[in-house]
């Protein structure tokens, strides 16, 4: 799995996506095991640099998962995250890496099914795109 650089980093908002992931876990619903969750206080905490760093460290794909539009308790965290994901995608494209490797997802805390679907969808997409062109440990400082 990780040897083939297929790891997905999912930045999960503590108020929505992380709860949805937790719910999926408690209900024993299977989802791809190549995803690593990073709990963030709000999707708006995730910067473009966090996304690029994930790729530098060998991730094949990144998900930024926040609340549904209009439901962010910090008001604009999820809309800011959406803009940043768009920007990160453009920056990746600029260097010849498929911009579809990074995605923004909006979901409700009780929607564990959507969480599972989105993780599976990106995992499938990455199978199509192939492993990350960046090999972990090969990025020089």
């Amino acid at each position: 799995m990780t040897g083939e650089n297929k790891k997905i980093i999912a930045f999960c908002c503590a108020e929505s996506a992380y709860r949805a992931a937790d719910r999926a876990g408690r209900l024993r619903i299977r989802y791809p095991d190549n995803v690593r969750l990073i709990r963030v206080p709000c999707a708006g905490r995730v910067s473009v640099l966090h996304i690029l760093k994930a790729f530098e460290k060998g991730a094949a794909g990144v998900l930024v998962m926040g609340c549904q539009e209009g439901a962010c308790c910090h008001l604009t965290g999820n809309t800011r995250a959406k803009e940043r994901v768009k920007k990160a995608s453009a920056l990746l494209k600029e260097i010849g890496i498929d911009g579809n490797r990074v995605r923004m997802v909006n979901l409700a805390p009780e929607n564990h099914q959507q969480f599972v679907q989105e993780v599976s969808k990106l995992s499938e997409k990455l199978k199509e795109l192939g492993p990350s062109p960046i090999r972990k440990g090969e990025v020089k400082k």
Partner: protein
Amino acid sequence: MIIAERKPFEEIKQMIAGYKKILVVGCGTCVTICWAGGEKEVGILSSQLRLASSKEGNELSVLEAVVERQCEKEMVEELRDKVQEVDAILSMGCGVGVQTLAEVFEEKPVFPALNTTFIGMPEAEGVWTERCGACGDCMLYWTGGICPVVRCAKGLLNGPCGGTRKGGKCEIDSEKDCAWVLIYRRLEKQGRLDLMRKYYEPKNYRAVKSPGKIEAVEA
């Protein structure tokens, strides 16, 4: 403040092609505020360079640094140890910052990662607009603090022209306000509309000789 934009990645890549170790230097002043060359942008460009070199199998090593003001020799001087380690410097400062680095570290090639565009101010989040043309012969005292030299598309000193659109927009760009309509409204608020009747003689654009130099004594 000075407003700048980042150059396309391809152009930056071509500039530094062939160098094995580079230092990306940001500036903590104007370009930090206009999101072009601050700490975050230095991190993003460095990350892009590392990812691209790893993808293409090049051996590029990227160091990062940000100085408080890249346009001051004393502040740039603190980079000396880092500069000695690298083959080239990539500046994320304005044109002055690039030249300061090049002057202090003459033995190293310095490349600009930004295009310096204008002197302006933030208008909304992520939006900056030009406000000063640094013409060296300021006439803002006659025009209610609105500069027709840069804000009028034609740079007219005696306006408005005949092409002002309905709603006070410019005939050249319907998105932009007609500077002379803004000036009229401002002077109206100040009760100085008589200034609209004043004739402004052709401006002395040679007030500041190029290259400009000012000598002053600290107060």
